[in-house]
């Protein structure tokens, strides 16, 4: 055995080397014994650790997937697959267009249509009759309305005149009063009047 080969056998395998051995075994599907592993207990232990770690990963993953898909779920899945297959194989049905078929709500829609039409007709007739009645009334009541319309106009024209009359009368009355107050009309009382003090005098 050459020195290199002997060194190869005596030096411990690193993690990559162990992984390579494991990968080769897994890829070929056959567990081969590596010459170094047969002789080195340390590497054998490390390889066993790596193998058990990978086995744990596998068992964890398998358990998780099996928990996710219990037998009941698989049975349901099986049934669903065959339902889909049957549905896919069944020839497609052509459903005729329901030309004369009446919808389920046909009765109610007819009734509501009649009600709406009657309401609309009633409204139109009502408005028409109302217009006619109004027209007739307006024709028969025209003189009275003209009077009514004229009356306020005449009243409106009188108001300033009345106002002006009453204003002049007031003015005249007040001026008469002033005149009567300013000079005594009865000669016998003029002396007494002269002695009587007035409000104007007092303010002065």
């Amino acid at each position, binding site marked *: 055995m050459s020195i290199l080969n002997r060194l190869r056998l005596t030096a411990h395998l690193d993690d*990559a080397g162990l992984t390579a051995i494991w*990968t080769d075994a897994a890829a070929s*599907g056959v567990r081969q014994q590596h010459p170094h592993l047969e002789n080195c207990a340390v590497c054998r232990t490390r390889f066993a650790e790596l193998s058990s770690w990978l086995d744990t990963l596998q068992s*964890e993953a398998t358990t998780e997937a099996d928990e996710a898909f219990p037998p009941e779920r*698989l049975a349901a899945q099986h049934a669903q697959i065959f339902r889909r297959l049957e549905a896919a194989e069944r020839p497609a049905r052509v459903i005729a267009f329901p030309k004369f078929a009446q919808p389920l709500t046909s009765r109610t829609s007819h009734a509501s249509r009649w009600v709406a039409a009657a309401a609309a007709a009633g409204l139109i007739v009502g408005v028409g009759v109302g217009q006619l009645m109004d027209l007739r009334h307006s024709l028969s009541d025209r003189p009275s309305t003209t009077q009514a319309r004229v009356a306020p106009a005449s009243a409106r024209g009188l108001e300033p005149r009345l106002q002006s009359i009453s204003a002049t009368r007031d003015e005249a009355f007040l001026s008469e009063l002033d005149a009567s107050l300013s000079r005594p009309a009865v000669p016998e009382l003029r002396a007494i009047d002269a002695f009587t003090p007035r409000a104007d005098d007092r303010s002065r």
Partner: protein
Amino acid sequence: MTGAQAAGFTGREADSGAASAVKGLQAEGRHAEARERYAELVGRHQRRASRIAFHYMRDMAEADEAVQDAFVKAYSHLASFREELPFEVWFTRILINGCLDRIKARTRRERWIAPMPDGPAGERDFGERVAGNDPSPEEQLLARERRERLARALSKLPERQRSVFMLSHYEGCTSREVSVVTGLNESTVRVHLFRAIRKLRTLLGEGQAQGTKVEKRRVHS
């Protein structure tokens, strides 16, 4: 040859036989019989398909839909199935492509729609699970945390590495089978598997180290 491998071979032969029979029945127009025969294939691969879809989607409802779609698609395209390829491999390819399409669509959706506040992935109908000889709540919590950490680490892997790791490690596919499913060379499959494990070791090792640091801090405080 191990017992499992022998069982695998007999299973594959049975799959090929069933697939050929379904194909023939479909061609003859005997659809009800074809469906009955196809039920055998569905029953044999349903669990495995659900696992794969769940590992990809991380959501029960979406994984369920992806599995249904894959089985329906496989049935309707069975005429294009070549007998020299195992049905399992052909079907897994359909399933994985469907899952990847769904993930792309989900990513597009999430870009525009804010996600609803939800529990951990796949825990939507946690209450549906049957309570039987379950472990204690503490153990359940720890297991859930471990799984979440693993799922996070897996999601950080590039798509090809993730596919190769899940198929070869979780589903026990050989590098040849993985190469047929993914369309990669066998040597490339090995390289991806190696890199995936190295990266997972780093990611999960860091996570564990951080976890222990936090624990230590809690103890000291």
